[in-house]
């Protein structure tokens, strides 16, 4: 309503956020939160298992250092930048929601920043002083201590951000009392954190085992020891991850479970949901089986046996985030703001006046026969474009043709009859906010898309048209 709208009409806006966010999660969970304690533990093992006249087993230590080098390079480049990228992309695609969240969570984010800075300083110290610390046992032990500090701070960054994610799904009491504490201690927070923690450890172990095959290819003994220790690590965390996953599903508020089962139950989501369940079970159990073999017959493990579960785990984490995003619908901030970025409390006003009148950027507010298509395009941009495209992924014509038949011309009256009621049956859809005339214009626009094949451009290429009724010139009168 109040922002120029960035729009990707082919890829779909959500795709941009999803790619950046999932990449970030795979790196953050797997190469920071779960990986640092794993590495520190292995570094400690090197000291413990070396002869008493040596500081550490240097061959082993160098091997662990190489694993850490990969994590260091990736986390401080792709990891850090995708973290910033989530902000950047959310600001483009979902400005009203991120702006609202920032107002509520300013101090949480500020504290998060302090923890971030500490984490970066610690990782720089931990990695860059590794070789120098090998001069004495005392400095080696201090180095290992830095590893544990780093592990704790990596975990805290995740713990804080999960509060914000949990809040977006179910703000708990926040809707009655807009305070930070209420937002942080929302009902989904702890279960989600309990799930993410062992899962991150699990992924860290799987990554670590995979890396062993790159750095110990020529040294069978080293590889064997590494596989065995990684397997032990995984065996500890995998069952916890599985239990926490079940717990997490159980505590999702009833409304959300209902919503989820509807959303997932409708259309072709049933299939998708079954895949998700299978992926979770297959991923964790394949990792478990791998770890059991790894403990007892480590030398039999081949690289492909590790890489395959590793991809399952990728799928698992990706699916988990996808479902997390999906089940909070129709809201972007539960009960407060719909995923079309309109606040629930403003709906009565939009119903009365229409959305165009209150939009900062729109080409027209008076809908006539001549400008119907243009007005419909504006309505589409304001109310549909955050999730739907005109001709790309999840396009608005596709969703209607899927119901009314592919290749058949859409019937304007059916489309206009469906939209105001869609949220009744499709509970993941927000209610249509506009008035009758806007509905009619939107329906005509959707039908016109079938023949025109037009793609709708966003503000980043087309710029914006300022709605005359919401300009300084008009307001000053």
């Amino acid at each position: 309503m109040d922002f120029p709208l960035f729009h990707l009409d082919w890829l779909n806006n959500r795709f941009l956020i999803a790619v950046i966010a999932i990449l970030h999660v795979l790196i953050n969970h797997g190469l920071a939160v779960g990986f640092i304690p794993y590495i520190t533990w292995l570094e400690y093992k090197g000291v413990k298992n070396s002869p008493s006249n040596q500081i550490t087993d240097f061959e082993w230590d160098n091997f662990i250092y190489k694993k850490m080098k990969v994590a260091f390079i990736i986390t401080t480049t792709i990891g850090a930048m995708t973290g910033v990228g989530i902000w950047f992309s959310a600001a483009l695609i979902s400005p009203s929601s991120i702006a609202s969240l920032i107002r509520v969570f300013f101090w949480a984010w500020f504290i998060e920043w302090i923890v971030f800075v500490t984490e970066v300083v610690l990782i720089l110290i931990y990695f860059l002083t590794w070789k120098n610390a090998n001069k004495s046992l005392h400095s080696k032990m201090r180095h290992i201590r830095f590893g544990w500090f780093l592990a704790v701070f990596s975990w805290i960054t995740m713990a804080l951000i999960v509060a914000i994610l949990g809040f977006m799904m179910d703000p708990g009491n926040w809707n009655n009392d807009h305070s930070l504490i209420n937002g942080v201690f929302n009902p989904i927070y702890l279960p989600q954190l309990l799930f993410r923690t062992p899962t991150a450890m699990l992924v860290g172990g799987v990554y670590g085992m995979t890396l062993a095959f790159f750095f110990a290819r020529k040294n069978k003994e080293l590889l064997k020891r590494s596989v065995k220790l990684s397997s032990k690590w995984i065996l500890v965390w995998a069952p916890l991850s599985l239990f926490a996953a079940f717990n997490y599903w159980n505590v999702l508020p009833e409304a959300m479970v209902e919503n989820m089962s509807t959303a997932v139950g409708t259309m072709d989501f049933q299939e998708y949901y079954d895949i998700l369940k299978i992926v979770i079970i297959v991923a964790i159990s394949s990792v478990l089986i791998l770890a059991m073999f790894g403990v007892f017959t480590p030398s039999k493990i081949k690289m492909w046996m590790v890489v395959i579960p590793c991809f399952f785990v990728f799928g698992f984490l990706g699916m988990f985030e996808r479902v997390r995003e999906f089940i909070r619908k129709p809201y972007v901030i539960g009960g407060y703001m719909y995923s079309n970025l309109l606040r629930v409390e403003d709906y009565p006003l939009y119903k009365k006046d229409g959305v165009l009148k209150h939009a900062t950027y729109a080409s027209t507010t008076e809908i006539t026969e001549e400008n119907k298509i243009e007005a419909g395009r504006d309505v589409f941009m304001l109310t549909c474009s955050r999730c739907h495209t005109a001709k790309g992924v999840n396009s608005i014509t596709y969703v209607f043709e899927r119901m009314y038949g592919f290749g058949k011309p859409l019937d304007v009256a059916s489309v206009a009859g469906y939209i105001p009621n869609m949220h009744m049956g499709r509970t993941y859809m927000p209610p249509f906010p506009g008035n009758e005339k806007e509905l009619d214009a939107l329906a005509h626009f959707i039908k016109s898309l079938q023949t025109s094949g037009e793609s709708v451009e966003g503000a980043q290429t087309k710029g914006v048209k300022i709605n005359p009724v919401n300009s300084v010139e008009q307001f000053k009168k």
Partner: protein
Amino acid sequence: MLFKVSTPIPKDIPLELPLPEWLLVTLLIVSFLAHIIFINLMLGGSIITLWAQIKGLKNKEYDTFAHEVAKTITVNKSMAVVLGVAPLLCINTLYTIYFYSANALTGFAWILIIPLVTVAFLLTYLHKYTWDALAESRRVHIGIIATAVGIFLFIPLIFLTNVNLLMFPEKWGTVSGFLDALVLPNVFPRYFEFLGACITITGVFLVGYHKRLRYRVEKLYTELTRNDLMKLGYNIAFIGLGLQILFGVVVVLTLPSKGYGFDVLISVISAGVMLVISAIYTWKSMVAAPENRIYYGKIVTFVLFYLVIYGGSRQMYRHNALSPHQKLVAAKTKEFQKQSEDARLHPVIETVEADTTLGEFAVGAGLFKKNCSSCHQEKEKLVGPPMTEMVSIYKENRDGLKAWIKAPGKKRPDYPQMPSFGSLSEGDLDELSKYILSINSK
């Protein structure tokens, strides 16, 4: 139609600022200062590395120097990114609608920052860790850092374009894409002044870096002495200061009058004075004998003063430029909230249109129209089966129909799954099922 450029008045987020504005502004300036110093070091350091490495093709000593500077880039870049989060958060909070509007209007360039910077960072690591491996193919190795420098030089333009565009809502309606916004007045002068600052800060840093007695110059270099290296640092700083003073004047002259005020002018002039003083001390250090280089502390202090005052003047300008518009936005937001509240108290009553000619089936027919008609028709298949079919199945089983509506299953492979209507009350279901089953008999 007359072409008229108008200025939009968006509504603000109707939630209070989480902290007093003065504190937010302070946090913004302080955290931005910390961020920009590391950005200066990262960009300046990579430019110096590139220069030194090219020089190092002929003189091995400079290759060593380049290697030493290169090692600092990857550390400084990590600090630069993480320190950038706080000013980003602050500007997001303080100038929400302005910042996000500028971001969206330059959207592609804005989001390109992420992959571009990632690539540049990876290149700096590649450059650092292939120093020995690519010893024989120096030109390839230089190509790596040159590419990173190229990217690093482009990124600030995107940021500057954004923070510039956010101050001019009157331009938002005229901009289509990043390039339009890039050529708005004042972006380039500010950019070149910034590049000067990168060189300055890096030069000052290099003096300090080589000043440390702990740093064993003689172990690394054969010809270059500590004195030479410090002098090199002063030279670099002096070049940077010269660029800053030159382009600083251009910035002052080309700044649109919109946000000007005596407060801005006085701060900008004071900032300029700081630069000139720093330049004088730097010059004195350059020409002085090593034992007479006593101004380092003064140079650092004046450069820091300059950064604080210049940062402050930017904030003053932004404040002056935007405050009239911000007042209009606040008024508009308030007006909207009032309208919204009125509408909540007196909503448009949505009545289910009841066709009274239908008598006892009127309510059910209304419910059907609202909830079912977009998928079901009387005699023909639309999305789901026609009503006549429902009647043939549930004629004797009204409870079965009600149960189905509440929690539908999936029977037909060629039909999409029907959504559940759990929101309908028992009474609604009664009326609805009564109406549906009345169809055949009519």
